[in-house]
């Protein structure tokens, strides 16, 4: 039976074909059948992880805790020179110039992307804004977040910075970032499950060499990466600890 590889559902739709190219590269490299399963949302993906239906994952940092500490996944690699950063954005004509100008009661649009949501909520803290005094509207994509803003249905929106940069210049010209994270340490990670543990070293060696040959570079380009940085287990344990400090707790 084929093993299952999955990708954090917050990948850019533009890159979906690229992940199939990467999966083909994976199958050739590891000489085994691997099925790429792309889930529609984080809940469906987490359900599959809990049911042990995932063997290899390019994971959102907020899911790394469950994968590493509950499911025994091991760290393989993270994208080189690429961290997840978030933006708080308003419509271009909005007089608001900075996060501190936003007031309780404001309406925000966001996707279900957990790390972007959390980073943006942290950006709102200096303005005394929190989940209890703002209204959230969840959209299916960043394009829809932009649409809500441009149509004046919400006061501000949360974006993955990379996703904001991918919006068309016409759309971006109607929007204005007012807050920007520079956290630098929150990254997606490629994790391998216990069922593929025997392939970890082989996969790491192949990933490290990808950027050194034309074919590998082409595959990397198709998923929007420039290369991989190999991780040891403590690197990902550190990131899980760090994410744990960012999780919102009522206590």
């Amino acid at each position, binding site marked *: 039976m084929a093993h299952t590889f999955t990708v954090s559902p917050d990948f850019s739709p533009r890159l979906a074909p690229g992940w199939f190219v990467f999966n083909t590269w994976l199958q050739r490299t590891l000489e085994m059948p691997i099925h790429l399963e792309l889930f529609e949302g984080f809940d469906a993906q987490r359900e599959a992880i809990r049911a042990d239906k995932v063997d290899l994952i390019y994971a959102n940092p907020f899911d790394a805790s469950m994968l590493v500490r509950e499911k025994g996944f091991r760290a393989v690699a993270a994208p080189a020179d690429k961290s997840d950063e978030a933006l708080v954005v308003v419509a271009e004509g909005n007089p608001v110039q900075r996060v501190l100008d936003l007031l309780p009661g404001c309406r925000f649009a966001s996707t279900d992307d957990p790390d972007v949501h959390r980073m943006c909520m*942290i950006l709102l803290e200096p303005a*005394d804004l929190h989940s209890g005094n703002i209204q959230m509207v969840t959209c299916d994509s960043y394009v829809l977040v932009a649409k809500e803003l441009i149509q004046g249905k919400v006061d501000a929106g949360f974006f993955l910075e990379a996703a904001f940069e991918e919006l068309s210049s016409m759309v971006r010209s109607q929007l204005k970032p007012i807050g920007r994270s520079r956290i*630098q340490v929150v990254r997606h990670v490629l994790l391998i499950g216990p069922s593929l543990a025997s392939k970890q070293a082989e996969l790491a060696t192949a990933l490290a060499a990808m950027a050194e040959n034309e074919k590998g570079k082409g595959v990397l380009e198709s998923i929007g990466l420039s290369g991989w940085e190999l991780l040891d287990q403590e690197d990902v344990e550190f990131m899980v600890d760090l994410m744990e*400090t960012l999780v919102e707790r009522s206590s």
Partner: protein
Amino acid sequence: MKDMIPAQIAGEGREVRLRYFNGGERTVIASDLEVPYPEGRLIVSRTDPEGVITHVNDSFCEISGYHRDELIGQPHCILRHPDMPAAAFKDLWTTVLAGGRWHGYVKNLCKDGRFYWVYATVIPNLRNGKVVGFTSVRREASRTKIREAEELYRTMG
């Protein structure tokens, strides 16, 4: 830890002799100048189980004014500001040594005597059930919360 010296201080400073949780003592000099928190940043550090710094990120060095080499190997209380009540740190240590998560508003002391406020979260790092150290992550605090903390800490003496 070495005593702070007046030549290093930005602005007018007041000298205070601090006694630390680990039994150490030193003279610190605190000025009334605040360093603004850089937007969107997280200040990250890790210590060993005794509170000795083993890792700092660039934001930590930038805001505190210390070089990385001056921080690694030092007790984390190198940042303690004299306006912070000892009871706050006692609560921190009691909580994390019991395996819990501590969070609170903290006024930190820069190398040059200036200060910066943060909202800090500290958790124990557990590996195979053992505490191997602590991770501390600080982020920007709201002015409302800072004012509340200032009032509270004044009453704690």
